[in-house]
């Protein structure tokens, strides 16, 4: 316990040793200077003339958005349906692909360490690349449309679902697995009766959670041409029809809130 002595020779409790205290000061100094350097770089790359204008621009933006052009909502039902489809079908495709990859990536079910590292590589690269980037790539390959959006969402979901699922496979209870293998079950039977029932609730929960995230992500895929309500958003922004933009925002807001509520309810029921 770090103790210092007063001039009268009495011991005084202190929280840290002198060394730890100095190291902490140093860490703070480094952290703060790093932040300031970064801030300096950002401010060098900023046109402050535009920023001074921000309040007026914001007020202008709000005044243009009001009142929302509610009639425009009729045009939006089809794109909204597309958005929901991109998210749902993309999630389905993603979890179908993520399921085997998670088994290959989990330490206790993988056939070989080499396979495991390849599966982990797939998971990491899918996770690091944002669905919007996947969409940009796929639009150049598949052409604009809903299909590119679905596949983009699926590719991004593999990493997320795969990672959470393989972690929950690694955390399963080993006793049912041992019991099943003691009956002489084959490897697949062990997976089917020993591992699968234990991870099913987690799998369902993860999938619903990803679906809810995907709804949010699929609202912007249209900005790069991958279908859905983002296309409409892009068109309205480009034509500076801010009253339409606010209708789109309201629709996105409601959809995302509803999907989040559904996902929370389902996860609550499962877990």
């Amino acid at each position, binding site marked *: 316990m770090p103790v210092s002595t007063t001039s009268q020779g009495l011991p005084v409790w202190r929280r840290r040793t002198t060394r730890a205290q100095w190291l902490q000061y140093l860490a703070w100094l480094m952290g703060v200077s790093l932040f300031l350097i970064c801030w300096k*770089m950002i401010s060098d790359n900023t046109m402050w003339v535009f920023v001074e204008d921000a309040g007026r621009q914001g007020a202008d933006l709000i005044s243009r958005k009001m009142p929302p052009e509610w009639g425009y909502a009729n045009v939006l039902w089809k794109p909204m349906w597309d958005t929901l489809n991109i998210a749902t079908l993309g999630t389905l495709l993603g979890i179908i692909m993520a399921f085997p990859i998670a088994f290959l990536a989990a330490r206790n079910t993988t056939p070989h360490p080499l396979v495991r590292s390849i599966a982990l590589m797939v998971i990491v690269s899918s996770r690091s690349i944002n669905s919007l980037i996947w969409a940009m790539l796929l639009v150049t390959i598949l052409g604009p449309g809903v299909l590119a959006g679905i596949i983009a969402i699926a590719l991004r979901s593999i990493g997320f679902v795969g990672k959470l699922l393989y972690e929950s496979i690694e955390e399963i209870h080993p006793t049912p697995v041992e019991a099943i293998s003691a009956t002489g079950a084959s490897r697949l039977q062990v997976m089917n*009766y020993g591992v699968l029932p234990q991870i099913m609730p987690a799998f369902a929960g993860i999938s619903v959670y990803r679906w809810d995230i995907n709804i949010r992500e699929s609202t912007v895929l249209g900005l790069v041409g991958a279908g859905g309500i983002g296309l409409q958003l892009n068109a309205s922004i480009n034509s500076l029809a801010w009253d339409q933009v606010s209708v789109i925002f309201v629709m996105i807001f409601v959809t995302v809130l509803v999907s989040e509520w559904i996902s929370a309810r389902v996860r609550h029921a499962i877990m």
Partner: protein
Amino acid sequence: MSEPMDVLTARQQAAQRGQWRRLPLIDSPRLRWGIVVAVVVYLILALASVEVDWERVAEGAGRALNFLGAFMQPDFISRYDDILEGLLESLTMTLTSTVLGVLLAIPVGLGAARNISPLPVYFVCRAIIAVSRTFQEVIIAILFVVMFGFGPLAGMITLAFATIGFMAKLLAEDIEDLDWRQVEAVRATGASWGQTMNHAIQPQVMPRLIGLSMYRLDINFRESSVIGIVGAGGIGATLDTSLSRYEYDTSAAILLIIIAIVLLCEYSSSHVRRWTQ
């Protein structure tokens, strides 16, 4: 309790006859089949409404091969300056936005925890969280680019705003779950509100707060690579340009750099989390 026992004995007898079946995931048969039917109907409707231009897909297949080829030989050199600039911008945006976002999220998170804040404050803070979490970063970026002009400042504000919702929500949940006895103990000594926060609540949530900040740093970097598409600075703009110029080898290089940095972030954040917990 008698009914489950009946079901259990029935299952055991069936198993002795050799007709054992595993328990279904969803107990009620009506709900189970209802879900199956609903899923099938939805899939038919959804797949029918997906229009695919197969000719265009066939045309693009060649580009897919080009792209795979480019991944085999990424080109870091020819656009070196642009990549470096974009990357630095992304990294600085990530760091500053995470710091600012977390600092701003702390008061919002305190306000959004039902057990320590009055009802009006609770509603205001929950509304802030809902707005910040519902809209995807790119949508927020569009608005901030209109307000603050092109460049990393708009991106930084966007990411900070998104961080507020994320961190505040998780922080509030954490505070709602905390061990209330410690708060009572500190209050019993006559501590003021600030002292209660500092000595009863902060020590309980700090490890998770640090872990979440690291996680958010990671997310912010990934997001900073896309908000450039709408003009909010960072590597996204470089990537977008290289893709639209069909310079796939440069795009591949950028993607590989992003993957590498995310890996590095993840690795170090798991270290930090292990160290704080």
